């Protein structure tokens, strides 16, 4: 652990308000002048089940979740069984404590609720405390909250106590609380906050060196996640239509947009399924609006056919894909990067779409804007690919980052005046699919414009959009459509998404995509600090691929580690596909247990793999060969603590 940071975790039952308490505490840390990142763990279940929320805070630049944490606030799981059924998971209530001990740093702090948790139920608890030099502060939070009148204030009580334990000033906490509460409720919360704060100091005294560091921001910060980045990017780019169907983790973007669009003069639609959602976005776009849809996993799978319709009819649309564990319903609330290939290739025929995978909140905002620009500049579908980790992890960004001009323009769409000018003499229809169009993009009229009418069809069509199966027309239309990618690549080159982080010509290179950006950069920094010659590159441009930059990066290194959150090395294979080489040079570092990478896991895996090793001390897999074949000839060393329920042997 870094001395200059605090990593605070609140653990409890799903549905117990862990999330909002965690976010408020995070805001308080941010307002005190620190940089923050958050990570959330929760089960696919509405109430009950162990969940936690972790915030890392430091005056330093932080890019990922921490490798371990040092303050635990363990509330009990308040999950009450139906009175009609008998509870059988006897120890569920103590999970907020037991499940969180493995990652707690030496010398860490534990505040727990004795009103729910009895440490006698926890095997070797006292031994572990002693061994790890943990500082334990038991308080009967439930009882205290009850006495103050409302049991739900347990969370606030716990916050007050941990604030005391780490010397965090109550003012910024109160400040944050007053944003969302008022009157009596605020008052009693502040009261209990202060009460437990003082009680902890009184009853226990504080005698450890885990304290909140000081920090100061140059300018005002906002706390946002990838979903905000995407939604705000879409709004600022003039998106005024969304259609969708809820699905974790995509729902976040959908909910933000659904709430804001009416205020922004747009419209949001929750519809009967994802086929309708994508089809509606296409219909809205066809009628002249900047439009989006999106989903996760199976929901996006249902969009395959409408996505093809957008490709075939050259209707611009932005689709968002939020990855979670697959295949099928998979791990609905866990993170994974395993939909890359799906998003690249789903839908029959030669695929014709732009795919961008932003690496952090700022990139989420900017690349969503880029996706709209490309979609509406080239009349093509553009997909923003992200994941549960980027979606839900919050971080601070200067408020001024969002101080930008909106841009509702649609480059390849015509005004009525332009339609009149461009319409060929004597033609009844508008040549919406003209062979010779500049950059391969014939601009489009909008229904209702005089003299703009045209046909469009998912069938191959002629220059006016009429179905036409003539072989020569076919080849011309295909070539024209494909020719757009050159120009799109040129546009993307200006954005310079793929940057090298670290040495110019390193011995070791770490290549990742999407949300692993921060983790890999931090890991590379650690390795560099340890004396390794290393550089990192995070790739966002999936299609069209940035051959030049990635090839250059690989060429310059001696060994390249491709880090990704899936089991079949999809990104590594994508690189191989695009670059047709580097068989020996690439080694995969894979994680697919549902949790995101931590920097230490990458460091550890690189250290092992650089020597040709195949084992790590984490649930991480090293794979030197490039294909599925040989999969079970290698070893994964797993944490042996959990064997999975119901081992039949």
């Amino acid at each position: 652990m870094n001395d200059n940071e605090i990593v605070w975790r609140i653990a409890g039952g799903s549905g117990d308000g862990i999330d909002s308490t965690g976010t408020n505490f995070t805001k308080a840390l941010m307002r005190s002048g620190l940089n923050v990142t958050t990570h959330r763990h929760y089960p696919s279940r509405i109430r009950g089940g162990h969940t936690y929320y972790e915030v890392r805070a430091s005056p330093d630049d932080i890019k990922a979740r921490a490798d371990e944490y040092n303050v635990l606030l363990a509330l009990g799981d308040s999950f009450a069984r139906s009175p009609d059924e008998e509870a059988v998971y006897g120890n569920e209530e103590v999970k907020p404590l037991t499940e969180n001990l493995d990652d707690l740093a030496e010398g860490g702090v534990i505040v727990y609720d004795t009103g729910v948790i009895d440490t006698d139920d926890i095997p070797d608890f006292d031994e572990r405390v002693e061994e790890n030099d943990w500082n334990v502060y038991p308080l009967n939070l439930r009882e205290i909250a009850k006495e103050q009148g409302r049991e739900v204030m347990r969370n606030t009580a716990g916050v007050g106590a941990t604030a005391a334990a780490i010397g965090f000033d109550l003012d910024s906490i109160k400040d944050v609380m007053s944003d969302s509460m008022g009157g009596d409720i605020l008052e009693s919360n502040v009261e209990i906050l202060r009460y437990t704060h003082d009680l902890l100091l009184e009853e226990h005294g504080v005698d450890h060196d885990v304290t909140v560091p000081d920090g100061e921001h140059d300018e005002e910060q906002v706390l946002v996640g990838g979903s905000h980045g995407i939604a705000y990017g879409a709004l600022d780019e003039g998106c005024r239509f969304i259609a969708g169907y809820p699905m974790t983790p995509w729902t976040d973007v959908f909910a933000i947009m659904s709430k804001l669009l009416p205020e922004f003069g747009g419209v949001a639609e929750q519809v009967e399924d994802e086929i309708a959602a994508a089809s509606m976005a296409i219909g809205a776009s066809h009628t002249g609006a900047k439009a989006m849809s999106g989903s996760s996993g199976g929901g996006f799978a249902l969009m395959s056919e409408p996505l093809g319709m957008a490709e075939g009819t050259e209707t611009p649309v932005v689709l968002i894909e939020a990855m979670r564990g697959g295949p099928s319903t998979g791990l609905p609330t866990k993170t994974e990067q395993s939909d890359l290939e799906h998003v690249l290739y789903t839908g029959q025929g030669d695929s014709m779409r732009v795919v961008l995978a932003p690496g952090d909140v700022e990139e989420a905002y900017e690349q969503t804007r880029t996706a709209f620009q490309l979609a509406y500049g080239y009349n093509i579908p553009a997909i923003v690919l992200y994941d549960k980790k980027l979606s839900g992890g919050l971080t601070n960004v200067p408020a001024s980052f969002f101080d930008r001009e909106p841009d509702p323009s649609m480059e390849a769409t015509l005004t009525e005046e332009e339609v009149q000018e461009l319409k060929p003499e004597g033609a009844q229809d508008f040549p919406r699919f003209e062979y010779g169009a500049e950059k391969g993009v014939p601009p489009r009229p909008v229904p209702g414009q005089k003299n703009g009418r045209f046909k469009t069809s998912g069938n191959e069509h002629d220059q006016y959009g009429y179905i036409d199966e003539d072989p020569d027309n076919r080849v011309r239309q295909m070539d024209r459509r494909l020719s757009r990618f050159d120009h799109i690549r040129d546009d993307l080159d200006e954005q310079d998404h793929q940057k090298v982080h670290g040495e110019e010509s390193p011995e070791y290179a770490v290549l990742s995509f999407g949300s692993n950006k921060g983790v890999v950069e931090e890991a590379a920094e650690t390795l560099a600090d340890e004396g390794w010659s290393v550089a990192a590159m995070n790739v966002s441009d999936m299609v069209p691929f940035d051959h030049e930059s990635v090839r250059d990066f690989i060429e310059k290194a001696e060994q390249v580690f491709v880090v990704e959150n899936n089991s079949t090395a999809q990104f590594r294979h994508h690189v191989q596909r695009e670059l047709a080489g580097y068989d020996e040079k690439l080694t995969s570092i894979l994680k697919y247990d549902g949790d995101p990478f931590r920097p230490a896991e990458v460091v550890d895996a690189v250290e092992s793999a650089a020597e040709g090793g195949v084992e790590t001390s984490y649930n991480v897999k090293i794979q030197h060969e490039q294909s599925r074949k040989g999969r079970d000839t290698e070893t994964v060393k797993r944490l042996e603590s959990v064997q999975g329920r119901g081992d039949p042997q």
Partner: protein
Amino acid sequence: MSAFSAIGEETDVESDDYTPELEPQATWCPGCGDFIVLKALKQALAELGKNPDEVQLMTGIGCSGKLSSYFESYGFHTIHGRALPVARASKLINPELEVIAAGGDGDGYGIGGNHFMHTARENHDMTYIVFNNEVFGLTKGQPSPTSPKGHKSKMTPHGNAKAPMRPLSMALSAGATYVARTAAVNPRQAKEILVEAIEHDGFAHIDFLTQCPTWNKDAKQYVPYIDVQDSDEYDDFELDDMRSAWEMMRTTEDGLYEGKVLTGRFYKDDRRPSYQDEKKERGDLPQTPIAEDYFDDSHDWKRSYEIIDKHK
């Protein structure tokens, strides 16, 4: 001034103005009922004085789906079963367009059945024409959801074991506010019903009997037909009374397979607001078309920075 001057413009149009020069001639089989839908639609829009540039026709895939190739307007030939959601969104973005969706019985009642149900429930303001030829035409004669029990084809050598679905009573139960059945053999009625459907504010569903002489010889002749509005025997139901309409629809649906072709209007409800109006009323849809904003230089584009404070 509107960015879409074709909309609402006073237009003097004739039926022929809806004939595309590039595909003036539909390629349906000789005797196909689809020709009559095309003709009736041209006549209806001419009667209503609609400019071809203010009409957005969305079609599915099937012989029927080719309607948009032979009809001169903005035309979107979508994918199988999805014309309705594409059309719905079109109407939300520009409620001033005349949005018409069309497709086959397989397209609309089979693969697209769920969209049909939910579009009716939501009462989107549009006209939906289902070419009901009781068969999959384009893919060569397989049974459709409206094929009679026992229909024989390559796919069902022993005859279709499935009972046909009931488009009229389903539309009503689902929430459609205008429901009619007409037939290619009765082009005059077809045109009139189309005019009414287009004028109706809400979801107007027309089950259009279109004989398919190529694959469905049994159902080839929808004659003699009875216009229920003109018939003494069948006119004792109220167009705006759901319960009696439902009964009449069941009778009509059963009748079709017993050789009694009943056509006409079956339900019309002018009280229920359209979905567009519901949304506007709640402040969930702007009063002016969203499509206009993109061409309005003075439009005030709200930006995320204006709401960023809540993240501080």
